[in-house]
């Protein structure tokens, strides 16, 4: 069976309401294209580097295929809003404007990495971009999102917290508890369920009693903005814009993004994605639902030939990613005990044993 839900109520809503929601400008669309080709280039390069053992971590979850989900939804945010996600976090980091050099250096565990080589692929973050991180325990970041959103409510700000969560995590206790808490406290969170059809190797319909995942919102009295074709950045943007406005003043919102992962759960799960029916399914998605092509077609249908600009963005992406690899490979590895111990605690460099104490330094 080819995974391809056809039921897209939010898509229909977008088409119907059309202009009422405000169309993105030409500049915005071109910039989305820039972001999407940068992500694709970055992720495919990561994949290559992993194959060549130049990236050595066991976990590397690529965003290829998901680009429109992140690009379209984050375009609805303003600078003071917050973003948090799980471990498929490279694309989110790049969309927010994190330096690809620091991100690539983190993949390679270098000192110059955005987390100093301590976090790796799954733990990118940037305080300067209000990016609260990628998290590695399925669902573990969801209550953190509630807490971050609580800070805004507590201080009377209307900043929202955009929270990405995979389809698999919607079956976990963290999802239930966090959505419920966001409802009773009217927290300004947009819970974006990135439904790529599989929680690791398990199809959504084998893992969830309710396969229209956005409908789980009803259980908590949360407003659902429905299911969106997340290969189409414009649809994603239109729905996200409505949800963000709602969350700012009212409370939590849920959106289901239907998308697809091109590189499996993680780079190491070759066995699963090498199955014949999987490769047929992947081919169909790439042929018919390719997010970069959909965006390009949209831009060209609206604005005619912008081939030069798009080509420039593709060239830039190649150059930027190549530079990030060169930077990362030239960077130093953390290697000292000081590197190892630093930042376990605030105000202490010591972890296990000192002459005076065990467990942490007494300054």
């Amino acid at each position: 069976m080819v995974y391809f839900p056809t039921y897209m109520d939010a898509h229909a809503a977008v088409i119907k309401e059309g202009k009422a929601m405000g169309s993105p400008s030409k500049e915005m669309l071109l910039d989305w294209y820039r972001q999407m080709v940068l992500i694709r280039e970055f992720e495919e390069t990561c994949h290559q580097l992993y194959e060549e053992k130049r990236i050595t971590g066991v976990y590397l979850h690529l965003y290829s295929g998901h680009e429109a989900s992140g690009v379209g939804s984050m375009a609805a945010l303003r600078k003071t809003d917050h973003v948090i996600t799980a471990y498929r976090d490279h694309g989110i980091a790049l969309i927010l404007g994190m330096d690809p050099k620091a991100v690539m250096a983190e993949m390679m565990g270098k000192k110059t990495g955005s987390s100093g080589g301590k976090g790796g692929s799954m733990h990118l973050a940037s305080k300067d971009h209000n990016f609260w991180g990628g998290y590695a325990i399925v669902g573990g970041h969801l209550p953190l999102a509630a807490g971050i959103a609580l800070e805004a409510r507590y201080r009377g700000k209307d900043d929202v917290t955009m929270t990405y969560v995979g389809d698999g995590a919607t079956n976990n206790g963290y999802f239930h508890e966090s959505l419920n808490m966001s409802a009773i406290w009217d927290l300004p969170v947009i819970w974006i369920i990135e439904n790529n059809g599989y929680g690791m190797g398990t199809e959504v319909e084998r893992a969830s009693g309710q396969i229209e995942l956005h409908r789980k919102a009803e259980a908590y009295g949360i407003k659902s903005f429905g299911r969106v074709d997340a290969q189409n950045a414009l649809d994603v943007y239109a729905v996200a814009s409505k949800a963000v406005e709602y969350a700012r003043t009212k409370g939590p919102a849920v959106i289901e993004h239907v998308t697809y992962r091109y590189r499996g759960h993680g780079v190491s799960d070759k066995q699963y994605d090498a199955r014949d029916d999987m490769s047929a399914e992947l081919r169909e998605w790439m042929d018919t639902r390719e997010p970069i092509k959909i965006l390009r077609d949209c831009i060209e249908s609206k604005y005619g030939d912008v081939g030069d600009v798009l080509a420039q963005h593709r060239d830039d992406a190649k150059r930027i990613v190549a530079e990030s690899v060169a930077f990362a490979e030239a960077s130093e590895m953390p290697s000292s005990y000081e590197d190892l111990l630093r930042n376990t605690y605030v105000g202490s460099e010591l972890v296990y044993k000192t002459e005076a104490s065990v467990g942490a330094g007494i300054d």
Partner: protein
Amino acid sequence: MAARNIAMREAIRRALREEMHRDENVFVMGEEVAYWQGTHRVTRGFLEEFGERRVRDTPISEMAIGGAAVGAAMAGLRPVAEFMTINFAFLALDAIANHAAKVRYFFDGMFKVPLVYRAASGWGNQATASHSHAPEPIFAHFPGIYVGCPSNSLDAYGMLKASIRDDNPVLFTESIALYPKPSPMPEDLEEDYLIPIGKGDIKREGGDVTLVAYARGVDWALGAARQLARDGVEAEVVDLRWLRPLDMELVYKSFKKTNRCVIVEESLPMYSFGGEVAANLQENMFDYMDAPIKRVAAEDVPLPYSKDIELLALPNAQKVVDVVKEIL
């Protein structure tokens, strides 16, 4: 200095209340902390005084309580999140161990997590197996978090204040048996009375044997010391107060004098506080050791309901006395 006897729950309430007045970012969240006035009455009167914004009832959602406190702390607030009892904090172990304790490290210092988890802890009162734990050592296993466990009112006051003001996450356990127990607090105590994180305390001086304990174990150790004194044995009681960091220097100082040590704890014996202290002593104080290091802990069973066998499972002063006599 004039002192007045105050129950530990009153001292904790006072510390928390003063910190909420001192810092607008400090707020309380947990099950039944607001309208119910706190299951253990620690937050009695808080809702009326501070309002719903800062005194937040949560659903019965320990994972969300544990994790929302992390997010709020990262974002700049200073949550004091209450687990009704430490038994329920097992449900939040991932939030505590994988997130509160590690967020700072895996983002290499990008964020601070200034939160306090408060939890009532301890065995007894026929609460039955699943509601009878003193599992502080489990939480103290993880680098990135501090663990504090006071044994009297003044310590609880100064330790909780230090925990709230610290920029690191702290798990702060409050022994249910000690909540109603009065102990002296100076009448002119300053609001900035803080007990540094990781600093232990000598609760009784003596030269013959060192009794190392924390929280309720300190009561048993002091009771044993009084009994032993009648036989002419002077025990020194070291209250470590914090399980992480662990003030082993204080233990070593005492041990160099007494050359004998018995470790007393309310919790289970395997992979325990006693094991940790004993291991450090033998590694670092071997030359001063005149007798085997001994431990007194709960029996290695889930705690039963029926009173007589429940008491049989628990440590007490007499058990400590008996073990001390084995090594004199």
